[in-house]
């Protein structure tokens, strides 16, 4: 008997229970649909978790990044005033002189440019120099000993106890340096470090005219001191004197900011993966709701309102979206334990990954929002499903109102923009990002529609049946062309863009070192050493036409504007670094091939001594600082003021391996100024390079040599490391694309089971059905890959032309590999699923499908 408590309608509990009951035979499929977002959520959660861990580690280890409470540094010795100030601060102090120099490993004979850090005092005050043996980090300070970077030691097969010559002095290797404050794997790769006691520096002869030495003073407060207010009091004095002040707090802010940007960049790539998943969700839910029309019509017929029907399926999507988000968050939290390993060479501090509940919460929230948002359009169509479908299925949902669809799409765009804004925190770049995503989606959708139209229009009626059937699958109702092209295409586009950018960057270095281009630079050649080094170079078979003289100077004023007036008037176009930097200029009477006059006239020789000499300024420097032809630039040439007139602006090809300069003097001005020389030449092989470096360093240990072949290796390794991280994220996108592919193929499997069975029933062989499937997925895979590659090429071409100022030459072999890989994968997944259908008896399949 019916109970007495009659209500106005079903409760929310009943709607929930109905949602649960209705999902019974669809749970695995629903989870599969939602699984498209798992990887995207996982990517975002792992990146955010890592960022959280990194932030707290940077906070915890900030002191160890600096090694002291305060650091005063500059590329000139501390002047008397600042030196006194530094001596008056803190309780303990240490000093460092850091500069590039050649290191000669005597046992192997190998030589390489290294970063020498000459220490005095007990630096670091926070953290330690981690060495093997551990005691070496302290003991080397008392002996004529050094600590050598681990990578460098491995490169020259060196070991503790070996001898290394720095300048004129031979040092014993006290230990292998594993880590030092502020040192990352990346900085070690670019410039491997050697620590030495400062008291042995004079003996090396490396501290001489022209040497690029960075002087630092480390200060430690043992007593409680308000560092913030102290730095506020002294920073103006220090900066005005041309030095830099670093504190733990500032270093922490700067490091956090840099890595927040890295985190945001990685988050954006993860977000693209998530968006790919969203396409999968939207498409799968669309198909799911279409399949549910019958059920919804029955419910409507029995008295369910449109709102109740809508809520039943909304609850389902929420539940499975929540489940997918939870799975993504768990996976992401697990993955973040791997990310520090992946990023170890880039991270500034050692990171111990830990669960970030905030990241998990964000992942769950984001997953739920995205599940609903991208399922909203098909969900809203539920409201329009007529109960008449119980009588006749042709009464399907009407087309619906365009306004609602438009609103849903606008919501999606607003969400994409909102999320990217949260990452970038800048309106325009986030708009560009949204626009780029929309353009990429539109291009892919356009290609998909073009393909469908073209196949239909130019259908090869005379071709064999399996071909016709396979091609027809691309455009007939319930096809997967659009969704597969978009998901696989975008994944491929991202992957290839990373590949192309890496190629562009490497090409820039390769071009510079290829052919007859110079590939070795010898610098810090003193006037007295010049002829001997030229002679050694010629003896070693190098083509040397001469050396380039270099004079160091500082800019005091532009017209009458100097650093003080610049500080007072912020409307002036000049940047402070214009006056703070050291200029290394040369003089000659002709331009070289990497230079071209863009404005004014180049006067090669200063003849009219009654007028200041006419110099040439690099056009970028002039543009950024509002310097024009005719301006008076007054330089301080090692104590002597020298007024000059800007006679011309030059374009300089910086990527050409030549001695290029921001400021060029004519002949007849600087000849008598103290100077040093640079020699640029070419070695034919790494062996030739090693032999030559050895010969020069043995004769003149103070001279430094840059081997561009080695630079190329370093850049290549660097790009490999950074590229690996980005490729890893791009792989995320590809993996998401594959999940969407699998989900889409499974959806189409359900849709096409009956047709395949019918074909088999009327005599089609397994082989024919598999061939039809293979043709369809080959076409889809090929076009998705091709469109993705074209998109990547377009984007990379724009980047090459506009950002890197170079010609885009794609490396075709990996591109072909990506193309073949995507095609094979698509066909493979399509075939695997179809095999399940064709390998089972038709009746069994039909029973399952019903």
């Amino acid at each position, binding site marked *: 008997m019916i109970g007495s408590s009659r209500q106005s309608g079903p409760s929310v509990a009943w709607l929930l229970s109905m949602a649960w009951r209705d999902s019974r035979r669809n749970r695995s499929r629903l989870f599969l649909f939602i699984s498209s977002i798992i990887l995207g959520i996982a990517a975002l959660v792992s990146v955010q978790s890592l960022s959280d861990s990194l932030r707290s580690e940077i906070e915890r280890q900030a002191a160890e990044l600096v090694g002291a409470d305060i650091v005063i540094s500059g590329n000139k010795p501390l002047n008397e005033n600042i030196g006194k100030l530094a001596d008056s601060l803190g309780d303990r102090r240490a000093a460092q002189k850091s500069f590039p120099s050649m290191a000669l490993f005597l046992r192997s004979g190998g030589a390489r440019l290294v970063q020498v850090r000459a220490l005095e005092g007990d630096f670091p005050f926070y953290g330690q120099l981690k060495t093997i043996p551990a005691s070496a980090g302290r003991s080397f300070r008392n002996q004529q000993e050094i600590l050598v970077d681990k990578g460098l030691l491995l490169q020259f097969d060196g070991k503790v106890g070996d001898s290394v010559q720095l300048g004129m002095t031979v040092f014993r290797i006290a230990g292998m340096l594993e880590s030092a404050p502020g040192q990352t794997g990346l900085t070690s790769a670019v410039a491997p470090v050697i620590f030495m006691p400062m008291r042995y520096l004079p003996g090396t002869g490396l501290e001489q005219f022209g040497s690029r030495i960075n002087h630092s003073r480390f200060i430690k407060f043992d007593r409680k001191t308000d560092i913030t207010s102290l730095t506020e009091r002294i920073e103006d004095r220090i900066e005005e004197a041309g030095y830099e002040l670093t504190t733990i707090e500032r270093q922490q802010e700067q490091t956090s900011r840099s890595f927040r940007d890295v985190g945001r960049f990685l988050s954006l790539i993860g977000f693209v993966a998530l968006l790919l998943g969203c396409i999968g969700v939207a498409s799968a839910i669309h198909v799911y709701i279409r399949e549910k029309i019958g059920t919804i019509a029955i419910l409507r017929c029995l*008295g369910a309102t449109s709102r109740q029907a809508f809520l039943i399926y909304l609850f389902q999507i929420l539940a499975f979206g929540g489940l997918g988000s939870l799975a993504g968050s768990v996976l992401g939290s697990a993955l973040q334990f791997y990310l520090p390993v992946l990023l170890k060479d880039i991270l500034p501090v050692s990171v111990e990954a830990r669960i970030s509940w905030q990241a998990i919460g964000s992942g769950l929230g984001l997953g739920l929002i995205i599940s609903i948002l991208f399922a909203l359009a098909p969900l809203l169509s539920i409201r329009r499903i007529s109960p008449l479908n119980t009588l006749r299925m042709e009464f399907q949902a009407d087309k619906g109102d365009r306004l609602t669809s438009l609103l849903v799409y606008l919501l999606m765009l607003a969400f994409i923009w909102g999320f990217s804004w949260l990452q970038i925190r800048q309106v325009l770049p986030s708009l560009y990002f949204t626009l780029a995503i929309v353009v990429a989606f539109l291009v892919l959708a356009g290609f998909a529609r073009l393909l469908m139209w073209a196949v239909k229009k130019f259908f090869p009626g005379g071709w064999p049946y399996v071909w016709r059937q396979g091609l027809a699958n691309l455009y007939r109702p319930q096809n997967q062309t659009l969704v597969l092209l978009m998901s696989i295409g975008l994944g491929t586009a991202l992957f290839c863009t990373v590949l192309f950018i890496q190629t562009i960057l490497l090409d820039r270095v390769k071009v510079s070192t290829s052919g007859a281009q110079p590939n070795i630079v010898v610098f810090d050649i003193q006037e007295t050493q010049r002829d001997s080094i030229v002679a050694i170079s010629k003896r070693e078979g190098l083509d040397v036409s001469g050396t380039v003289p270099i004079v160091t100077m500082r800019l005091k004023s532009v017209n009458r504007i100097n650093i003080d007036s610049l500080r007072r008037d912020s409307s002036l176009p000049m940047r402070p670094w214009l006056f703070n930097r050291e200029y290394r200029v040369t003089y000659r009477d002709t331009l070289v091939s990497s230079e071209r006059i863009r404005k004014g006239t180049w006067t090669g020789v200063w003849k009219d001594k009654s007028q200041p000499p006419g110099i040439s300024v690099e056009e970028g420097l002039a543009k950024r600082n509002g310097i024009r032809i005719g301006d008076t630039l007054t330089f301080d040439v090692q104590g002597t003021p020298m007024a000059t007139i800007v006679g011309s602006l030059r374009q300089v090809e910086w990527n050409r391996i030549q001695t290029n300069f921001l400021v060029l003097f004519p002949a007849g001005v600087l000849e008598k100024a103290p100077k040093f020389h640079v020699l640029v030449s070419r070695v034919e092989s790494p062996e030739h390079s090693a032999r030559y470096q050895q010969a020069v360093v043995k004769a003149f240990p103070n001279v430094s040599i840059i081997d561009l072949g080695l630079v190329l290796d370093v850049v290549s390794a660097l790009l490999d490391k950074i590229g690996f991280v980005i490729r890893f994220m791009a792989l995320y996108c590809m993996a998401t694309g594959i999940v969407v592919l699998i989900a889409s193929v499974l959806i189409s499997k359900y849709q096409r089971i009956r047709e395949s069975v019918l074909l088999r029933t009327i005599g089609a062989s397994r082989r024919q059905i598999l061939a039809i499937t293979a043709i369809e997925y080959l076409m889809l895979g090929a076009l998705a890959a091709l469109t993705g590659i074209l998109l990547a090429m377009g984007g990379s071409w724009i980047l090459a032309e506009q950002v890197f100022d170079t010609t885009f030459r794609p490396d075709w072999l990996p591109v072909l590999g990506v193309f073949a890989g995507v095609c094979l994968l698509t066909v493979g997944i399509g075939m695997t699923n179809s095999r399940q259908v064709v390998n089972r008896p038709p009746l069994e399949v039909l029973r399952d499908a019903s």
Partner: protein
Amino acid sequence: MDTILSLSHVSKAYGHGEHRLKVLDDIHFDIHSGDTVAIIGPSGSGKTTLLGLCAGLDRPTEGSIQLNNISLESLDEDRRARVRNEFVGFVFQNFQLLPTLTALENVMVPMELQGLKNIRSHALDLLAKVGLANRKDHYPVQLSGGEQQRVSIARAFSNRPRILFADEPTGNLDAENSELIEKLLFDLNREAGTTLIVVTHNPELAAKTGRIIALKGGKVVSDLATDRQTASI
């Protein structure tokens, strides 16, 4: 007897302009509570459309329909859904059971939609009446066609409807099952005092009702009482 269903000059057309297709044209009749009526006619005559309009599944283009003294044409779809839930039962040719619900759950759904509680025993009674008490936990896919239709009948009577619409209820069944379904339909109808409207091609089934309305080309061509009941034209 009071009138449960009243159609006044009802027409239904689809499309616009040149493509306008008039499916029902000026249909006019009343049906009293407790009547059994068959709507017959050839394919395309508008039987199913008429059933849909009478049951409040659709709205007429012209005319008015009163179901239990409620004007259906003035109600929106959700209000019509409430009317269906409260007063109407359905039996379909292809059963239209919810595939993800068991037989018992299918029977309970109309009552659940009303927000009724303690309904399980009533649903079990109904299943027992149609002889499927032992299959209450089976899903539709696990039942034969005849069994599915019996569950459908139990569901149709579960909310104690005032009127029951059956669209070709035996159309997908063999002779033996057809006979069983017809018997169940008429027995339960008699027992509950429900008005029964059956759309059918089957003259034998039509003959079991008290009144036969014949449609052709969207118009009522005859409206006759059978020997079971006096016509009420």
